[in-house]
């Protein structure tokens, strides 16, 4: 029986994980990656509102958030355009279509990205109907400095939507990307890859604060305990 200390908890583990989480071979155990889960039940399905808010708030306090968005129109420009308080751009990336990849040039397609510092705008990353969080086809990039969008250029690393998504952190460093969040199996977990140890430490500190503001606690556990606690989450939920 899992302790009641894990009620309404955000769980973190940085021990090497199994592939069934659909995050690839992640975390690698090098301290630059962590898997995130939660024991909060969501009556609506999907990511519980309190968890989504805590994650977005922590990211927003670490930098500026950019993610694929099918909701906000971005035109067809290859560079950032101001849209209210946010910025939008349409950048190239390798298509997911197996037929498209047979085309000359590797089958590039374009996706819309939204860059924002606003929590309420960033919460859409969990709800996008096309870049589905629950289908492991959503990611978020956190960049510095927060005042301006990341200096991304087409094409984006194809790894972002693949199992080896965490490897994209290296080529994106020049664009100011500090961390990448990617959704895992059924959207019930996610992985966070960091550029450096200090970045990870900053994020953990911000997540602790944001979680407390949302009535949650953050617990770091072993990989084995991570799966066990999540499987009993329905019993823990208050």
């Amino acid at each position, binding site marked *: 029986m899992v302790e009641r200390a894990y009620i309404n908890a955000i769980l973190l583990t940085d021990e090497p994980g199994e592939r*069934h*989480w*659909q995050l690839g071979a992640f975390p690698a155990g090098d301290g630059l990656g962590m898997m995130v*889960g939660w024991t909060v039940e*969501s*009556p*609506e*399905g*999907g990511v519980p509102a309190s968890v989504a808010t805590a994650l977005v708030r922590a990211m927003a306090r670490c930098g500026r958030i950019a993610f*694929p968005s099918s*909701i906000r129109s971005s035109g067809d420009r290859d560079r950032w355009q101001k849209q209210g308080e946010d910025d939008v751009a349409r950048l190239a990336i390798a298509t*997911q279509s197996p037929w498209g990849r047979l085309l000359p040039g590797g089958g590039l397609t374009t*996706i819309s990205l939204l860059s924002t510092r606003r929590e309420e705008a960033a919460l*859409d990353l969990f*709800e*996008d*109907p*096309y*870049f*589905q969080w*629950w*289908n492991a*086809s959503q990611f978020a990039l956190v960049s510095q400095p927060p005042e301006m969008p990341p200096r991304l250029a087409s094409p984006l690393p194809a790894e972002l*939507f693949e199992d080896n998504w965490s490897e994209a952190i290296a080529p994106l460093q020049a664009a100011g990307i500090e961390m990448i969040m990617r959704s895992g*199996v*059924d959207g*019930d*977990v996610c992985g966070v890859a960091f550029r450096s140890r200090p970045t990870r430490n900053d994020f953990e500190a911000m997540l602790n604060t944001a979680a407390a503001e949302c009535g949650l606690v953050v617990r770091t556990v072993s990989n084995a305990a991570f*799966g*066990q606690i*999540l*499987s009993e*989450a*329905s019993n823990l939920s208050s």
Partner: protein
Amino acid sequence: MAHFFAPDHRTDGYEVDGKLAPDSVWRMRILTGQRRVIGLWGGQDLQVQSNNPSVVPNDGFEETASRADGLRMLSLLGKFPGTSMLECRLGGNLWCSLQVSVADVDLSPNPPLDDRQYALLSPEWNVFGKFEPASGSVPAAFGVLSVARIPVPGTNLVVELNSRGWKGSTSTVFIWEKDGGRYARHLRLDYGYNERTKTVDYHWNRKGPAKEFWGIQDHSPVGKGGEALFKTAKYLKWGGRVLLVVGITMDVISIATASNPLRRATQVVAGWAAAWAGCKVVGAFGAGIGTGIEPGGGTAVGGFVGCIIGGAIGYYAGSEVAGEVYDWAEGTIFAPLPETAPQ
């Protein structure tokens, strides 16, 4: 020289005059309600038409062989007693013709074999099966299912096989909120790691309130029936997409090789439209029945089965009706109203 000839050198009901070629037929006799085949040699570019559609309808003549060397096999229906000329034209010029006499009873010395009682059992010429245009309701039904959204009666939900997302999903059956908009609530049948059971299994995933999806809980495992549904849906999705492409390709070929491409095109378009409508209507009915038996899994099974049945019937009925309407329209002559002097 283009000419008509009797298949297999038959003589019953075929009258050979040998004028255009040693085997050229100038007249053939058909019993009322009977279909008989006539061959046309050297007529690849000719437009064939009955000048009396009430006796021999211009129904496309079930043309099943249309070879590059100009050999064509036409099946003529004796609709009503009378006489019609089957005319072959090129740019309005008559190249050859055949007199067709349709009678209830043929008392001539060499009457056509009365095979009408067998008409429903087998085609008159076995060779037809080999040349028949490969189109039909089966590829249409499965093809339509692979891309259709089947409404669930009494709800705001639709059943479909698509994830509607950036990439493919490990789920195969989706019950979407029809007007979900940006939040796209849904129930989906998934295979993969289940964090509740800590095993890889078949289970439902839900995004949206349980009450909108018959109370089915997120991550709830499904039994053998759910596993069978998952696997069937996977084959229906990809097999259906293949059949969709195959069906469309075959229908395009059938249009290109038909003696009356416009008529065949009308049939094809009407067939696909009716298949789509049939899938939606009968699929919705099936989904309703299935929901009554077992919400979720039953909904999907009923919807898919209904869609296939409705799509197949729709395609067949649509193309048949379109053919009839086309023949009616083509055989109808609109007489101008008499002009009257202004008062």
